[in-house]
Every structure is written in C-alpha cells, then in structure tokens.
C-alpha cells in the first residue's frame, strides 16, 4: 500500500484527486504544446517567417505569456448580452474538452476511467461543445456571433455522423468500444501471421482513418471547415465578443480538443500507447511518450490541412458530408463487417 506523506494513495478520494489534477494539468499543457509547435512555429515556417522568438528560447514561452496577458484583461460583457449564458458558454465548451480526456488511455494503468463504452462516451461528450458555441453566439447579442453559432451547429451535426461511422469500422474489428480494449486488440493482432508490431488498424481501416481526419477537422472547426469562426467573413464568429480569460477558455478548448482528437485518432488507428515487447510498469512510463509522439503525428496532419486550404462554403460542406463522406463510411462499415465474418 503506497504511502506518501502519510497519505494512502490507493484511497478512493486520493486517486480521484490525482486523476482530476492530471486531467486539469493535461488540457492546458496539451493546448500549449499544440499551439506552440503547430500554430506558432510550424505555421510560421510554412509561411517563410520566424514566428515569436523573444519569450523564452525560440519563443517557446510565448503562449504562457499570452495566457498571463489574457488573465489580466478586463472581463467585458456586451451591453445587451445575456450575462449568465454569456459567462457560462466558455465553461460548457471547456467542459466537453475536459470530459474527453477521461477515457483516453496512456498506458496499461494510466487511464482515468476505462469505460466499456469508451469511444461512444468520447464522441458523445465532444458534441457538448456545440451547445456552448450556440450559447455563446446567442448570448453575445451580435449578428456575426449568431451567424457563426448557427453555422457551427449545422456543421457539427453534419459531421458527427461521418465521425461516428468512421469509428464503427474500428469497433467492429476490435469487437469492443473500450479504448483500452481497442489498444489491446491492436497489440495482439497480427499482420499475415507476423505479430511483432501488432496490427495497427490504420492498415485495415485506412478509409476510416481518412474519414476520421476529415470529420475531426470539421468537428474542431479548423480550415477548410472553419466557417463558424471565418475571420474574413464573421470576424471570429461566436468568439467575436469574448475577451480576456473567457477567450482563453475558448482557445484552450479549441486546442485541448485538437489534442484529445489526435489522441483518439492515435489510439484508434495507430496502436495507441502500445510499445512492442514492453509490459508492466515500464509500459506505464514509455506509453505516454509513445502516445505523445503519435498525437503529434496526427496533429501535424490536422494543422497541415488547416494552414494550406481555403475555406469551403457552408452548403458545399453539407453536400460534401452527406453525399461523399457518409456513403463512403457506410461502405467501409459494410466491407469491414463482411470481412470480419469471413475471416
């Protein structure tokens, strides 16, 4: 029974407290890592400029400085806004991000709660954010915000479906909805009888992976699907009226969700935390590092698209979702099901 400073760490309240602290620390950390590596540095180098260079070595503390700056700003409410809803909206958005982290495994024991319906839970809570966005758009008493929020609602509903259908293929193949179970299914799999690296589902579910990336892009409202925030049209959409730490909440929600979706993508399709031949406590140490590397690989694609593509129009996006992605996902499910039964 591990005792640290006289506290029994296996007590229920102690583990819960630890888990909450880890998740609370992970969201800002993930947001800052993605924000720094991709938004500040990768984008700058793609655009033949340096990006921030002053705060910390190579500008690495820029987002920390920005965060401190946001906290110091005045907390402004627009005059005709619905104050309670306006204040609650960023928290709802951040809450959905927070809940996503509960089911993502980073090692054999490093998981907050290994739910049997893990992936179902993750996809369900990720759509909570649209509620926060609608609240923000409505409560801001701003026409641009309202248009942005309604676009977000339409878009997220259209893209939930391909996202879920893309994941169904993986669930069929793994035979479980628990994310830990999906990792183990990939670890124990074999490619033509060779089981040394397991069987990451990206090989069998390549179409599913692509659909997942596209749908996640829309879910995260990143270009080419960033109509809800479209700064050249709607001046930031539902975020237009937010300043200070409330804006920081949206920012953290955006990048925290990007981090979580990259983690889900890495877990579902790239084998998650699994390191071949490593078990026990060592896997708990190496697992987060391996998962982190895979997260960065998936996030690289998400942000690469974001920086190079123009924005689609809302109706073109709907047509793309309903006429291309959903039929493709359904075909993928059917083929996966047939092959699952056949082999």
């Amino acid at each position, binding site marked *: 029974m591990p005792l640290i400073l006289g506290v029994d760490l296996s007590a229920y309240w102690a583990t819960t407290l630890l888990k909450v602290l880890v998740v609370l620390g992970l969201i800002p950390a993930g947001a800052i890592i993605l924000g720094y590596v991709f938004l500040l540095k990768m984008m700058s180098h793609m655009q033949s400029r340096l990006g921030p260079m002053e705060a910390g070595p190579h500008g690495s503390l820029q987002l920390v400085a920005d965060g401190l700056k946001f906290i110091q700003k005045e907390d402004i409410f627009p005059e005709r806004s619905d104050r309670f809803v306006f204040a609650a909206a960023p928290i709802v958005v951040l809450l959905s991000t927070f809940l996503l982290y509960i089911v993502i495994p980073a090692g054999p024991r490093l998981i907050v709660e290994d739910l049997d319906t893990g992936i179902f839970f993750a996809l369900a809570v990720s759509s909570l954010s649209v509620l926060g966005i609608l609240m923000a758009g409505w409560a801001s008493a701003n*026409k641009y915000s309202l248009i942005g929020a309604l676009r977000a609602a339409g878009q997220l509903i259209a893209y939930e479906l391909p996202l879920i259908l893309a994941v169904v293929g993986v669930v069929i193949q793994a035979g479980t909805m628990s994310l830990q179970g999906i990792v183990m299914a990939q670890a124990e799999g074999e490619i033509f009888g060779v089981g040394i690296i397991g069987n990451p589902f990206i090989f069998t579910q390549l179409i599913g992976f692509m659909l997942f990336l596209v749908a996640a892009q829309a879910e995260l409202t990143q270009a080419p699907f960033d109509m809800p925030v479209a700064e*050249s049209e709607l001046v930031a959409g539902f975020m237009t009226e937010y300043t200070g730490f409330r804006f920081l909440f949206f920012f953290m929600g955006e990048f925290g969700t990007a981090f979580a979706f990259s983690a889900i993508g890495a877990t579902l399709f790239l084998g998650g935390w699994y390191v071949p031949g490593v078990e026990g406590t060592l896997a708990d140490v190496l697992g987060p590092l391996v998962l982190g590397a895979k997260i960065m690989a998936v996030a690289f694609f998400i942000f690469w698209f974001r*920086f190079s*593509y*123009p924005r689609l*129009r809302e109706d073109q996006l709907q047509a793309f979702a309903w006429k291309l992605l959903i039929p493709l996902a359904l075909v993928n499910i059917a083929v996966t099901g047939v092959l699952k039964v056949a082999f």
Partner: protein
Amino acid sequence: MAVTTDWQKSAYIAAQAADARVNVELETEGMTLNLGPQHPATHGTLRIVVRLDGEQVVWAEPICGYMHRGYEKLCEVRTYPQVTTLINRIDWLGHFANEVPFILAAEQLMGIEAPPRAQWIRTIFFEMARIANVSLFLGDMGIQLGAITPVFYAFRDREYVLNLMEAATGGRFHPNFDRIGGLKEDLPRGWVDECHGVMTRVISFCQEMEDLLMGNEIFQTRTRGIGVIPAAVGLEYGLSGANIRASGVDWDLRRDQDSPLAWKHCDWKVWTHPDGDSYARYWVRLQETREAARIIVQLLDGLPSGPIQAKVPRIIKVPPGEAWCHTENPLGEMGFYLVSKGGRGPFRVKIRSASFNNISIVPWLLRGVYVPDVITILASLYFILGDIDR
C-alpha cells in the same frame, strides 16, 4: 381589460396547437448587417449594408466616403511638382502608376515630351507598381477565402519589388519620382541586373500562386460561377481593368491608345477570360502579373541611353488649356482631366479612379448570393479604399 379565464387560456393553447398541426409557418424577418466600416474583408473603411434572409443577401449597398480626403480640391492649391506627392496616395499599392497620367496630362498641355530613356524607365516603374499592387491581390484573395498562407508569400516577394523601387527612388511606398519632362534621377548602378533577378522571382511567385491557390479544388469551387459579370453589364457599370477583361472584353489602354510610354516596343499580350466570374478575375490578374514581369525584362534589355530629363523651365507654368490623359493602372482605367489657367498650379483637376466605378456594380452583383460569397466577390473585384474615396 379582458378577463382571462382558465377556459380562455386552454382554448388559446388548443388553437395554437391546431395551427402547429396544420404546419402554419412561423413568421420570419430579415436581418440588416453592416459589413464595415471596420471589417477585415473591406481592407479599409468601406461600409456595405446588406439585408439578409438567412445567409442570403436580399439587397446590398456600398456606402463609401469614409476616407474622402478631397484630393481634387487639394491639387488646386499646390504647384505642379507638389501634386505628384499627393496623388501617390490615391491607390497606395500602385503608387508610381498614379503619377504617370497626371504628368502626361501636364506634359501634353506644355507641349513637351520626355526623352526616350525616361519613357522607358517610367514604363518599367509603372509595371513594377502593377506587380506590387496585383501580387498582393493574388495573396489576399487566399486570405479572404480562408487560406492564410498565400498572403505571406505575396508579402515576401512583393518586398523585393519594393526594395528595387526604394533603391532607385528613395521611396518604398510613395516614390514621387516622376517629373514633368522626365524623371528625378537616373537608375543607380547595378540596378538593372538586380531587377532581372527580381523578375525571375516574380514569375516563380506567380507559378507558386497557381500551384498553391488557383489549382486548389476548394478555391475553384468557391470562385467558379460566383459573381458572374456579363460583358454588357460590366460595360454599362463602367468597369475597367482586369474586371472587364475577365468578362471577355479585350480592352487595354496600354495597347489601345497611342501613349508616349514604351509598351509599343515590347512583345506582350492582353489576357481575357470568357467566364466573367471570380475565378476569371483571379486568373486574368495572375496572367497580367506575368506579363508585367515579361515587359520589364524586355524593357531592361533594350533600355536606351541618353538624358532622363527634357529641357523644362525652373519654375513650371503650364499654359492655359484643358487636357485629359488616362492610363491602364493596376486597378483599371485611371484618368486626370486637367484644366490650367496658366498659373503655377492646376486650376481644376478631375480624377477618374478605377475602384470607384468598379464598386458601383456591387449592388447588382451581390443580390441573391450567400454571405461567404459576398467576401469572395468583394475580394475578386479588388478595390483599394484610397482609390474609391480619393
């Protein structure tokens, strides 16, 4: 006041429910949205009032004048050499090109002509102003459609052109280099070689834009068939420049009028596009940037030697008379109508700037389009606020 009983209340609710059952539509009302004066898509202070039904524009009207600086009046209280400083700022991206029509009009009244070397260098700078202006459009169109990367490439390569401009004239943005009867100075040593290198960069920049942005499928779905201007309508609204050439009207003042500038000595082409949509306007401008680089390279190769300034009295007085001179500026036709009473400054100046006429088609063009397409159309019409309001 009527007494409301429970019975009346429940009757009212039942009636409402019956209405809902027979699917009586809710009454909706439109929304008036002010795009601007401060809005990222207007890159300046243009205000566009749009009446929306959902996301569809019912009616739109541009309201300009927020940046009116009264240039026509200001010209009247300045001497001729001072006027070029001022009119540089009309189309601030195509700086040098603004000076040329005014100087040509004044020269026409005085009956003098600049020596050939000055005319050739003028043409080189004119086309460089076109590159500096239009290359920004090529990147900016991307950012209006949500692609953030192209605009940085545009700024990067435009910088080389502006550096050349600065090396020769001393001014990056406002060269104020054109003089009645010639130019302020000759080109510095080594400038011609450097210019060759920069033009190679400009041509590769155009290729980059074509690969990165114009060839992109999303860009094409966003611009093809959006904001179509038929040639007849465009002519009625007085469009000029790339906007009318993209509608298939083969009209370019560089070729179509007898100008003292050196275009007639080069081999170049006026590009037109039959479609008249936003994509066509982008395509035409891209080709024009390429042509401008080609023109400059040819002019550099055949640059004549000789003086850069004709004999002009120290104090310039323009003889009485009236002159109209127009040129094909980066944004379209720009003209100066100059009236002189024989004094040291103009008596009256009327400026015809391209953007003011180009945005007059906005109400016609925006009817029935979606909000994102409003931005596409405005970006593809390409106006500079200084050029609208003067």
